[in-house]
């Protein structure tokens, strides 16, 4: 019995030492002297990730605007400390064309950010906080920790894919996610890991010269957004309780470590560079019928650039498609403003022509529709417009 007890005690100690060692090796951040090599299971995880990345890249949902992609990557590069640069991570940001609130990092340093979340961000300091948070998940090897902990069940993944169903093609990137992407973008990591990502991520943003006070503002803003618009998405950043935790966590950091710390906002530069993305994201919000979100975003664009003809036209489309009280008049006003801003932009001419058509103003309709075809001879809806013009000449 004594021998048995001693043997068990020795075994227990051995296990404890091994577990402790394993635990230590799994939490040492990338680039730190103790980080060591990737372990076998981490190697396997990275291989899985390469497959997931390929699937995402092939899903046809990547946002194709080199200026904006370069700009976002430049901010990510500013966050990289020398130790991260010397680590095996390849830090790169890719933008997914989707109006959903999502951003996640793969363990190899690749970060995916959706246009939906970028359109809600107000300045570079907020973007830096978000990227810093995601980058920390990669540098601090949170994914492998999550996988070594609770096994993620395929049921959870299936449930998630059901939840993304209403978003159809805009959720395509989401449905391309495998188990690693699922953990990174939906369920998130343990509360401790998330707080670590808040803390270390904010430290990176501050070291890059950005104002720390912007971090809670971003998550507060997102939280208000999903409350007001009753948006509840399956993603980590689209989930109300998780956002509330972020706000609290950042507020604690601000009251302590960064109480008197100021820094750069980069607001004007952010809004100017991201303008085409705001318009594009509003277009996708409009396509899935999120009229208020689209209107809010486009109003921001016209506030910044009052003669932005595309934004004015899309604001007209929001009103026309929403078709609520006073929307018809509102849409006509916006379409006319769009024409006044750029008479060569074809779409508002067609929109006004269609309004005239419904109102019975044949001459007005004919003029506008003809002008539309002159300005856009290759218009994909040319057949419809020609049909309406034929109908007008027969009436």
């Amino acid at each position, binding site marked *: 019995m004594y021998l048995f007890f001693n043997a068990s005690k020795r075994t227990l100690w051995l296990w404890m030492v091994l577990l402790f060692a394993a635990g230590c090796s799994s939490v040492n951040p990338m680039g730190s002297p103790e980080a060591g090599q990737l372990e076998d299971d981490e190697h396997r995880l990275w291989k899985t990730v390469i497959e997931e990345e390929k699937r995402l890249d092939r899903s046809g949902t990547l946002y194709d605007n080199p200026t904006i992609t370069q700009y976002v990557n430049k901010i990510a590069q500013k966050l990289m400390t020398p130790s991260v640069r010397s680590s095996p991570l390849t830090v790169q940001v890719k933008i997914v064309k989707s109006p959903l609130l999502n951003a996640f990092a793969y363990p190899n340093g690749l970060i995916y950010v959706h246009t939906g979340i970028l359109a809600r961000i107000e300045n570079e300091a907020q973007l830096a906080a978000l990227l810093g948070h995601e980058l920390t998940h990669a540098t601090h090897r949170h994914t492998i920790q999550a996988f070594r902990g609770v096994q993620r069940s395929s049921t959870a993944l299936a449930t998630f894919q059901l939840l993304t169903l209403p978003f159809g*093609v805009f959720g395509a990137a989401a449905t391309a996610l495998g188990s690693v992407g699922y953990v990174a973008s939906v369920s998130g990591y343990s509360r401790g890991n998330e707080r670590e990502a808040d803390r270390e991520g904010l430290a990176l943003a501050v070291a890059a010269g950005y104002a720390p006070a912007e971090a809670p503002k971003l998550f507060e803003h997102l939280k208000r957004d999903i409350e007001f618009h009753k948006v509840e998405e399956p993603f980590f950043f689209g989930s109300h309780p998780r956002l509330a935790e972020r706000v609290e966590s950042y507020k604690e950091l601000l009251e302590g470590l960064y109480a008197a710390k100021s820094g750069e906002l980069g607001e004007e530069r952010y809004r100017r560079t991201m303008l085409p993305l705001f318009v594009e994201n509003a277009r996708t919000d409009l396509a899935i019928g999120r009229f208020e979100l689209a209107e809010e975003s486009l109003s921001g664009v016209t506030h910044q650039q009052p003669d932005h003809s595309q934004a004015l036209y899309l604001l007209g489309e929001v009103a026309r498609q929403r078709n609520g009280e006073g929307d018809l008049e509102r849409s006509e006003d916006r379409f006319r403003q769009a024409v006044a801003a750029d008479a060569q932009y074809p779409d508002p001419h067609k929109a006004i022509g269609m309004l005239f058509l419904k109102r019975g103003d044949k001459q007005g309709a004919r003029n506008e529709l003809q002008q539309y075809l002159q300005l856009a001879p290759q218009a994909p809806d040319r057949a419809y417009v020609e049909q309406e013009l034929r109908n007008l000449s027969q009436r």
Partner: protein
Amino acid sequence: MKLLLIAVLSTYMLTACVGRQAKWSMVGGTQVVENESIEVEWPEAWMKFTPAEADESAKKEGLILILTRDGIGLQAITLKRRALEQGLIYTTKKANSGMLPQELAEIVVDDLRANPNFIDFQVVGNSPTTLDGVPGYKLVVQFRNKAGLPKQAVYYGCLAKGSLYILIYEAPQRHYFPLDLPTFEAVKNSFKWKSQGGTSS
């Protein structure tokens, strides 16, 4: 005798409660669609599926019937009707009776684009048309289904009698789609709005 009468009455009542059952039947020739004032000339020797009256998912889809020759995975002609107040399935936008055909096509495209069963969805054709004189749209779309099979479909649609009527032909892109497209176009061209009468199918 009394027991037999009760049994017969119970069976009758049960059947009445259950309503129309889902059924497959052979079609061909000119027929009036059951419960609809539509007359169509169906291709000979195709099979028709009519959903059960209590089929909630068919009701949600507005499914009236599906026709196929070799199986619905290989070719399917589908007729749907959705009341305007019912809206569409995947988009929150709604059609209204004052919409022009192009506007109607626009929200139908939004609905199809938001359908998670359609992967890599693309509109390859969108043009005005008529269904027995009623102005509508013709959409030609391509997508992959969840199993990865490339498919192609043609959607004809119009607003009539307070509803959105949709006539669809869907088949695998390779081999099957071109094979039965002329048959489908003949069905579309035979489409007639009837006030009453005709042979019920």
